[in-house]
């Protein structure tokens, strides 16, 4: 027989080089493990490339808040890395009516209980902070320490760090998970513990963990520095993000460090092509103009779409895959994967290494679904 199968052994084989997979590679290599990362496409080229890159604590679910807050602290060690374009612009949540404004104190209390510093912004302060906002808003809430980043830059940075510590990148596709590792499209076999971080593509390898792609659109403008200062969101954002409508839009605008303005956000089930839907763009921009009418005259350069990987309950699958002691998962972060990538990596790898996790890992245990 002329055929001899090539096998390489690692401690950990990470499938997928999005921000979650590269964060896992970075942490595992830092812990001295021999790491392989397998990615057939661009680094950070899936949901990572389509994301806004807003680092934000979402408080509408306790587990989500815990993971966000844990991760945001981890992000602090990356603020000086040029490649990730870290900009601490802060988040300004905007109240479009008195009812929303009245609910801010409970939101502040929830955040404070976890340790997130935020402040109430009255009407007058609101317009001092963002003079171009529509004149009929009621105030808002500012989280000054939150920031924006360039997610593909972070994925590259994390991967480069891991590779500098010896991690190996396989530009290849995993066609199957085996008893001992993974089989690649070129017939190479990699042996080791497997960690699947393939986002929307998760069901291809782990069909027992359902993921739905929730499509989003983003629009970016030419450079107009100084028009918008904070990442701006409407307080009603969570209603859009967590609603179960087939489609929804919310006001979500970000100042890029380049002076460009990045405009979101839409959420849509049922569309599985990356085509830009102009009716959806129109809805999204109408929502934007309601809060920032002055943007009408600015030029848009590009529109793109992406798919958020959504788990059955909106929380990521982080942990051991039930019934497969050698297979772990970190996927299903929906729209919060950039923020929570760093915490997710630690949570999974600490569990695998049998260490205590920094936050309660149970809410993310894949066993809640597949058991």
């Amino acid at each position, binding site marked *: 027989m002329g055929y001899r199968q090539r096998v390489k052994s690692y401690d950990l084989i990470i499938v997928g080089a999005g921000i979650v997979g590269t964060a896992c590679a970075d942490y595992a290599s830092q812990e001295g493990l021999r790491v392989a990362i397998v990615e057939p496409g661009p680094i950070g080229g899936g949901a990572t490339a389509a994301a806004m890159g807003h680092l934000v604590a979402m408080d509408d679910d306790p587990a989500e808040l815990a993971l966000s807050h844990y991760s945001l602290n981890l992000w602090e060690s990356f603020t000086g890395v040029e490649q990730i374009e870290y900009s601490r612009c802060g988040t300004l949540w905007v109240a479009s009516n008195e009812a929303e404004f009245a609910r801010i104190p409970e939101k502040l209390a929830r955040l404070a209980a976890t340790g997130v510093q935020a402040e109430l912004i009255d009407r007058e302060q609101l317009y001092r902070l963002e003079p171009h906002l529509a004149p009929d808003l009621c105030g808002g809430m500012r989280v000054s320490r939150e920031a924006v980043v360039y997610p593909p830059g972070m994925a590259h940075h994390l991967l480069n760090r891991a590779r500098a510590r010896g991690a190996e990148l396989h530009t290849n596709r995993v066609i199957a998970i085996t008893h001992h590792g993974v089989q690649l499209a070129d017939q190479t076999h990699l042996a080791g513990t497997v960690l699947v971080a393939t986002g929307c593509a998760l069901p291809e390898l782990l069909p027992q963990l359902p993921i739905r792609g929730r499509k989003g659109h983003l629009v970016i403008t*030419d*450079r*107009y520095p100084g028009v918008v200062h904070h990442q701006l969101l409407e307080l009603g954002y969570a209603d859009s993000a967590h609603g179960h409508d087939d489609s929804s839009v919310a006001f979500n605008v970000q100042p890029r460090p*380049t002076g460009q303005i990045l405009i979101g956000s839409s959420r849509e089930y049922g569309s599985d092509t990356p085509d830009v839907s102009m009716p959806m763009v129109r809805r999204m921009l109408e929502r934007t103009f309601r809060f920032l009418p002055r943007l009408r*005259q600015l*030029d848009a350069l590009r529109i793109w779409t992406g798919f958020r990987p959504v788990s059955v309950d909106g929380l990521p699958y982080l942990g051991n895959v039930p019934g497969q002691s050698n297979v772990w998962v970190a996927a299903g972060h929906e729209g919060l994967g950039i923020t929570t990538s760093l915490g997710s990596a630690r949570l999974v790898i600490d569990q695998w290494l049998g260490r205590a996790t920094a936050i309660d890992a149970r809410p993310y245990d894949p066993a809640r679904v597949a058991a």
Partner: protein
Amino acid sequence: MSTVRIEIDGETLDVPAGITVAAAIARVERPFRRSVKGHARAPFCGMGICFECRVRINGVAQQRACMIAVHEGMQVVTDD
């Protein structure tokens, strides 16, 4: 040839009617714009493709100077 009166960087000028803003800026030898890393740039393709000639026209930033003819009272700001 009839002329129109425009303002470039605060300076009032009479220029031939029908010429583009790009031509008007060149006639007074003003810079056009700086690139993202701060290098001087000026019209390159002359036909609205390259976006090197962008200036602020009547308060609106990022307008292509080679695509717009001068108009009476127009205000142009270069080198944003």
